[in-house]
């Protein structure tokens, strides 16, 4: 029966080639535009660290004075931690693992004379960073807790940077000159850059920034080169006029902090710990706001809070969906006209014993066929759309391509859309009474 309906549908569609083409084109354009934008949104909101992200949390403290006006839309100083708070959380060891970090830019002097000195971007952090985020190493490993305490001059490089500096030879044990001081390479990581770079500061390019090195935070802060050849590259915001530039200042935020918590009990305990810590700081007179302002964000929750998807992209998505909506209305009207015009045929089939259900299925299949064709066209259009997005210099542009699930999703969306669009016309068609039409002929 099914193949018979397909044959009927094909015959009917062939009878009105222009109309069929119009419907396929309309749904193709709607699907193409929608899937382009849904794909962009999909890659922008994907999980940066599948498997680990569920156990990673971002503590949020609120050391701002009560009268400080926070910007509801922009980035606020309390998105990052102050040095004293970060160190307090770090040394409390209340989580399975914890690491403090900040983006950095250093001036690197290669030993090879044929390479000019250059600036590289990376992160200053503490030793647990590598295990907590599961950074894969090619050789060596991260530094130890002792290195953190001793402010050791050690560095971890990515494979790309290590190759650039030392060629194919082993890099571990070699030295790298950062500014005016030598650092010992203790590990080389695979080129590792979660998309989005969730642990970066709000000023980062979350989808295109890549860390090329990791340095111990304690060494950087003690270094006389800080603000010279070693710089903090994220937001540094202070709210006291005493000393805004001092990174140890208790009213200057610049540090990001992540913790690993494996069970719901640990999460609840840590959340309480943050509130208790804030209450303690308030009783000491450092904090002014209620301790319950302290929060613990899950990784995906933090990304949502950071609001990484630009308004323009959201607007484009709504526009694309609006387009699809209008295209569907268009198809409903055309299919309705088309199906009702065949009232004669329907009534003959009904008179010869076809049930309303059969008629409904027959026309449903016809609309689904339009959907399949529209979906294929939409797939092509969305590939063109994504290609053109990849040509743009936007931060996220280079990620805009479909994975298999989006490919299947495109065709599914097209079929669902067209079957939905065909529903009303098919229902109207199957209600054509058998005898009346025959009489009118």
């Amino acid at each position: 029966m099914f193949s018979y309906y397909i044959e009927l549908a094909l015959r009917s569609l062939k009878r009105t080639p222009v109309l069929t083409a119009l419907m396929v084109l309309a749904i193709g354009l709607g699907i193409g535009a929608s899937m382009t934008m849904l794909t962009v949104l999909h890659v922008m909101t994907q999980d940066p660290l599948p498997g680990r992200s569920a156990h990673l949390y971002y503590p949020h403290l609120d050391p701002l004075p009560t009268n400080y006006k926070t910007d509801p839309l922009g980035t606020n100083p309390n998105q990052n931690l102050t040095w004293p708070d970060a160190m307090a959380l770090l040394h409390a060891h209340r989580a399975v693992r914890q690491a403090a970090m900040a983006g950095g830019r250093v001036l690197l002097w290669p030993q090879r004379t044929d390479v000019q000195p250059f600036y590289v971007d990376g992160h200053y952090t503490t030793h647990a960073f590598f295990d907590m985020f599961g950074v894969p190493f090619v050789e060596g490993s991260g530094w130890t807790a002792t290195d953190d305490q001793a402010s050791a001059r050690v560095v971890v490089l990515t494979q790309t940077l290590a190759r650039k500096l030392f060629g194919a030879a082993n890099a571990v044990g070699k030295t790298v000159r950062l500014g005016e001081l030598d650092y010992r390479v203790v590990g080389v990581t695979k080129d590792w850059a979660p998309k989005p770079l969730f642990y970066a500061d709000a000023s980062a390019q979350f989808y295109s920034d890549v860390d090329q090195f990791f340095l111990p935070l304690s060494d950087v802060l003690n270094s006389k080169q800080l603000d010279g050849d070693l710089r903090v590259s994220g937001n540094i915001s202070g709210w006291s006029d005493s000393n805004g530039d001092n990174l140890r200042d208790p009213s200057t935020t610049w540090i990001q902090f992540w913790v690993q918590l494996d069970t719901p009990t640990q999460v609840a305990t840590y959340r309480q710990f943050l509130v208790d810590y804030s209450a303690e700081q308030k009783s000491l007179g450092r904090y002014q706001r209620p301790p319950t302002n302290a929060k613990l964000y899950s990784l995906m929750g933090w990304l949502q809070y950071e609001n990484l998807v630009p308004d323009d992209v959201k607007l484009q998505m709504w526009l694309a969906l609006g387009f699809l909506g209008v295209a569907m209305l268009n198809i409903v009207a055309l299919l309705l006209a088309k199906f009702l015009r065949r009232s004669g045929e329907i009534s003959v089939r009904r008179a010869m014993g076809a049930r309303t259900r059969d008629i409904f299925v027959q026309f449903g299949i016809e609309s689904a066929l339009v959907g399949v064709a529209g979906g294929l066209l939409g797939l092509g259009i969305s590939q063109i759309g994504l290609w053109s997005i990849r040509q743009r210099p936007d931060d996220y542009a280079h990620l805009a391509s479909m994975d298999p699930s989006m490919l299947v999703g495109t065709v599914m969306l097209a079929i669902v859309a067209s079957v939905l669009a065909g529903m009303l016309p098919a229902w109207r068609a199957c209600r054509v009474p058998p005898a009346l039409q025959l009489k009118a002929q």
Partner: protein
Amino acid sequence: MEIRPIISTLRRHKLTATLLTLQVAFTCAIVCNVAFMIANRVQQVSLPSGLDENVLSVIHSTGIGPDAETNPWAQHEADLAALRAIPGVESVVAVSYALPLNRNEWSSGTCPDKQALDRAMQVMSMHGTGCIDSSIYNGSPGLIPTLGLNLVVGRNFLPDEYVLGQKTPPVAIISQALAHRFYPGQDPLGKEMYNGAKSPIRVIGVVKTLLRPNLHGTGTNYDSIIWPQKPNSPGSDYVMRSAPQNRERILKAAKAALLKVNPSRIINPKYTQTYTQIRAEYFQRDTTMIGLLIASALGLLFVTALGITGLANFWVGQRTRSIGIRRAIGATRGDILRYFQTENFLIVTFGVVLGVLLSIGLNLLLMQHYELPRLPLWYLPVGAGMLWLLGQLAVLAPALRASRVPPVVATRSV
């Protein structure tokens, strides 16, 4: 033209007609709002900076090595001399880092007078005190003529008014927009501004237009101040003025000249740009968005036109017999043509009426979520007119086909 028979026909196709009406309504709503968004973006992208952008190019250099911090201004002077010697360079200035639309902003709360400063100090906030967060530009002597700024009132800086590096100068030149906000209805010359609790800064001149490094929103985009302050840190931007066609060549020559003066520096090709490129880069997202908006508006209109044509074609086919009968009993070709045109006009009119309401609703929604301004009302009649026109164009071919149905059809059986 008799409308009654048309209405009664449409009643028989209530569902189809309603669907088409809805489609027209949604198209009208979306297209009106999209057109408004396009207009906003175009206005944004073409905001004047006050600079002679087409004759300017910028190269950024950062001194490195142990000597870079010792006397940066001396290095800048040597660099300026070398750049001035490049054939084709008319003038060149050094600025610390801030330039209109280059995103490197140095902004600072500035108060128009001592009372405003005191108010701000008291409440620890600028909000409502008359003090304004404004962008501060600095640069070596010759900044105003090199950038091509239009000094409308007052005078340029004198050589002895320049300060070095981090120091606050005794005088400043402000933009006309800031002058209006600080001293409405008064002469800004000689007024004393305060930047923090330091000594006053006297206003000695006003430039007509000077855009900020970042746009912050209508009304604040031009709050700029120029300080007579020579850059004194290893990093600096050099702005060169030359004929437009020489700019690419001069940028190449500038890089070579700077490295010849002192090779211990980093010149990032990303910050070696003509001003045209700086503007294009700043507004890159907006230009993409304009393209996308235009494409989607045209796409929507296209799909709607397709729908109208498709349906009209269908109805013509369906009514061939009745058209034949009408022709046989005396209707002219023009009558048939006008019949379909009027039918279309009616459907589009219903759609447009609904569409105007939807446009306003959609605009309210967008205002809430995307900070879009209110849709000016004149967009609505224009949008409506456009859809009427589109409808008439889309229905023309099917209507003409209908008018060519010969009366003899009436006598044929189906």
